[in-house]
């Protein structure tokens, strides 16, 4: 086994000095106490945020420790201690599908402030295979990522990527994309693969159904998910250093969701995810499901809303009591030349950007906004690899900054003000979408100062309005319904 020596380049404006740090390979099978260290989370503005002295884990061996540090009604800010890293929630997890976050190196990800990254079990099992990852000492070692990691079960990709996938009681049957052989992914197999990959959090194999589907299929899927969770729990070989999260299914039916929540809570899992959303349902249904689940799930365990997403959705879900999010949106939209800014999005491909010498976001302290103009990025995007690298960097920085701001504003007792400022910047005319108003009412946050006197439904807009708006106000299109898989950016 080789030992890795880490190289920390110093701030880019000074001469680089090699400071090797010895990094211990992460192949322990016992609770790695020595890796824990109390973390002061530093924002790039230089402030120290919630430096919490580390509290010793409870006597029962656990792979996760969740401690709430601040609240506002349903919203909470917490410290989530995982085997590889101590995280602050609410947090956003970038998706590193195939063992890398497109184009960014580990040290850039650390600079940006990524705490947990997500790996896709389906892709990794194909290449380089979970057996090879196990031989390498787990995905952490293989990628040399020192912080936390989460793997999904592989089920979602299978259903969404493969035309001939079919779900039976046994598992998900599909044709192998490599050689066309019929294959079967069972709950047991999914957990075994994830055990080999070695992430801090692993997801149970669930029966995922799109929320746009109606009928008995949803009920079938929900009950099957509960049956499968038991099989997942039984198959899980590493509960002492990998946390198995259950996924709440049930479509948009409150009764089904309730049954599922109760069933999962009975199993006393380390954390829970709210699945089956982010697939095309309307926003009004979306927030109601999140609200119902967060109300019913236990207080003292993390709640992960899968596939979310847009900054606005993250703020709303956090107000309703969710803690963790993941989505390909920031990195994917970067590759199409779209930057995330507090006002919404900025389409750098647009001709108007060609002589705009402002930074992407004047309020953003990231390396890209400090050094580059919109005009320069415009000439790079969609043509050169560097363009998508720089935009991915900025977009992820934006998401991490949003996560940090959510956490600190809750801890420092100014969450409602943060929400209002956020909405005012995004909707300067006061046209906050109705679903957001309704959700905030349930969350107990007064956003009347951000809303225009007669807030109306945002599904319709006049073509004049689009003409007079700045190009980056096309966000309205993104916020009427949830379609992260469609190319809104083009």
């Amino acid at each position, binding site marked *: 086994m080789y030992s*890795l020596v880490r*190289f920390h380049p110093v701030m*880019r404006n000074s001469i680089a000095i090699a400071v090797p740090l010895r990094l211990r390979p992460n192949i322990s099978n016992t609770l790695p106490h020595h890796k824990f260290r109390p973390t002061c989370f530093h924002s790039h503005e230089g402030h120290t945020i919630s430096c919490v002295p580390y509290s010793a884990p409870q006597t029962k061996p656990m792979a996760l420790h969740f401690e709430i540090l601040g609240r506002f009604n349903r919203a909470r800010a917490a410290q989530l201690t995982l085997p590889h890293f101590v995280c602050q929630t609410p947090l956003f997890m970038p998706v590193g599908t195939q063992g890398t976050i497109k184009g960014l*190196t580990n040290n*850039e990800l650390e600079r940006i402030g990524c705490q947990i990254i997500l790996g896709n079990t389906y892709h990794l099992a194909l290449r380089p295979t979970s057996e090879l990852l196990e031989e390498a000492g787990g995905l952490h070692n293989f990628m040399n990522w020192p912080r936390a990691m989460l793997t999904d079960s592989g089920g979602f990709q299978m259903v969404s990527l493969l035309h001939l996938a079919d779900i039976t009681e046994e598992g998900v049957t599909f044709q192998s994309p490599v050689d066309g052989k019929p294959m079967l992914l069972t709950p047991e197999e999914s957990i075994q693969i994830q055990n080999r990959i070695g992430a801090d959090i692993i997801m149970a194999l669930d029966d995922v159904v799109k929320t746009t589907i109606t009928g008995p299929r949803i009920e079938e899927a929900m009950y099957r998910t509960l049956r499968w969770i038991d099989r997942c729990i039984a198959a899980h070989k590493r509960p002492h250093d990998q946390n198995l999260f259950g996924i709440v299914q049930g479509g948009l039916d409150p009764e089904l969701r309730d049954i599922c929540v109760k069933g999962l809570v009975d199993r006393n899992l380390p954390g829970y995810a709210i699945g089956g959303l982010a697939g095309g349902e309307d926003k009004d249904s979306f927030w109601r499901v999140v609200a119902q689940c967060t109300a019913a799930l236990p207080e003292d365990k993390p709640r992960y809303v899968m596939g979310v997403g847009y900054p606005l959705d993250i703020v709303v879900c956090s107000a309703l009591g969710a803690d963790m999010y993941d989505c390909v949106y920031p990195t994917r939209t970067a590759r199409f030349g779209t930057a995330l800014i507090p006002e919404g999005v900025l389409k750098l491909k647009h001709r108007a950007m060609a002589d705009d010498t402002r930074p992407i976001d004047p309020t953003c302290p990231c390396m890209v906004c400090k050094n580059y103009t919109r005009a320069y990025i415009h000439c790079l995007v969609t043509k050169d690899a560097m363009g998508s690298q720089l935009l991915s960097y900025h977009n992820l920085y934006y998401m991490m900054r949003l996560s940090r701001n959510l956490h600190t504003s809750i801890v420092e007792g100014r969450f409602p003000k943060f929400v209002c400022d956020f909405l005012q910047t995004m909707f300067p005319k006061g046209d906050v979408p109705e679903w957001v108003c309704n959700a905030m009412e349930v969350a107990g946050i007064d956003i009347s100062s951000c809303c225009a006197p007669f807030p109306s439904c945002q599904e319709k807009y006049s073509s004049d309005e689009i003409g007079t708006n700045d190009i980056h106000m096309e966000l309205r299109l993104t916020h009427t319904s949830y379609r992260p898989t469609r190319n809104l950016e083009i």
Partner: protein
Amino acid sequence: MKFAVKKALSSSGARVGVLEVGSCPAPIETPALLLATRKGLPHFISPELLPSLPSPDSNLLQVSPLHFLEGLSTTTISKIGGLHQMLGLKQHGIAAVPRDSIQCLPESKAATRLGASFETPCGRLLIKPKDYIEMISCMKPNIWASLADEVPAWVSEKRNKTSVDRTLRWLDDCISLYPAAGSIFGAIVGGTSLEERKRCAEEVAKRNVSGYWIGGFGLGEGIDERPALLREVMDILPDEKPRLTCGLGLPEEILQGIAAGIDLFDSTYIYSLTLGGFALTFSLDKSGEQHNLQSDQIGSDSTKINLRATAYRKDMSPILENCTCYTCQNHTKAYINHLLNVHEMLAQTLLEIHNTHHYLRFFHVIRAAIQDGSFEEFRQAFLESRREHFKGEAIST
């Protein structure tokens, strides 16, 4: 810009010099490598990782002004304040040369008496001296080459002579239009004709320039034709001014250029290697000996390894054991092999870092050999042992 020769060998034209460029934090020793860029930044190495390369060696970049014709007007560049400001590279030295040998290639058939022609991603462009000077004055590079009419080795004598005439005329245009930005390097062309090379060099040497850009190489001439052509040019040029060349990329060509007296090189070798999934592994031993490292892998030889090969699937060691680049300090061959397999851009980033780092170290070793006075022996040993390995592998496969 200031340049001074520190040591020159009598046995060959090789010399060690020191180049001071306004924006660089420290003087740069020559012979030096200029990093190839696309629109001013490296192809894959992010600005965050540039400081991880050896400094100040890695602080010189070659930028082609033509890249920006694809989407960025000169007025905008001016408004931003020039290349250094726009690229966020205030501590780097920038040399502007229209030809980048990858995507902006001189197209001699379309050149006219009015301007040089280039094939670029935006199509074929005719660049006139006036337009070129406008670009330079907006971009404000530290060093820039005058506009040249480069021709490949197979053109007629008449065409070759015309190219020298045009290049000289454009040099005068550039000087008279005086962009008041950066140091001008006079372009010297002449193809494979010894007389034309001599004539061009003599004429350029008469002009008031800060250095010389020797073009027309890497365009079809044989590697054995070059030493004579280089010598012809170098004999005429004054010693105290720096010489920059284009189109000499392979280690053998670099050594050839240094032996003739060239101080600054750009090289597309690193870019080609990176795209192909190759990592440089040739020995940096100061004797020049190329020890047999890994000659049994598919597509690899002892000078570089092909990380796409399945042999590296489970290889949990870094590319080179004692390399101090970011890639070797943090990642394994197995990981890079996986990244190449799944077509992830990070593979190219990591390879470009390693290859650049390795090549910069190569230059460092060469400079040490010149200082020692052992450059000729170094070069001999390097070339011969490399040839032996290639021969050996050709026979064994």
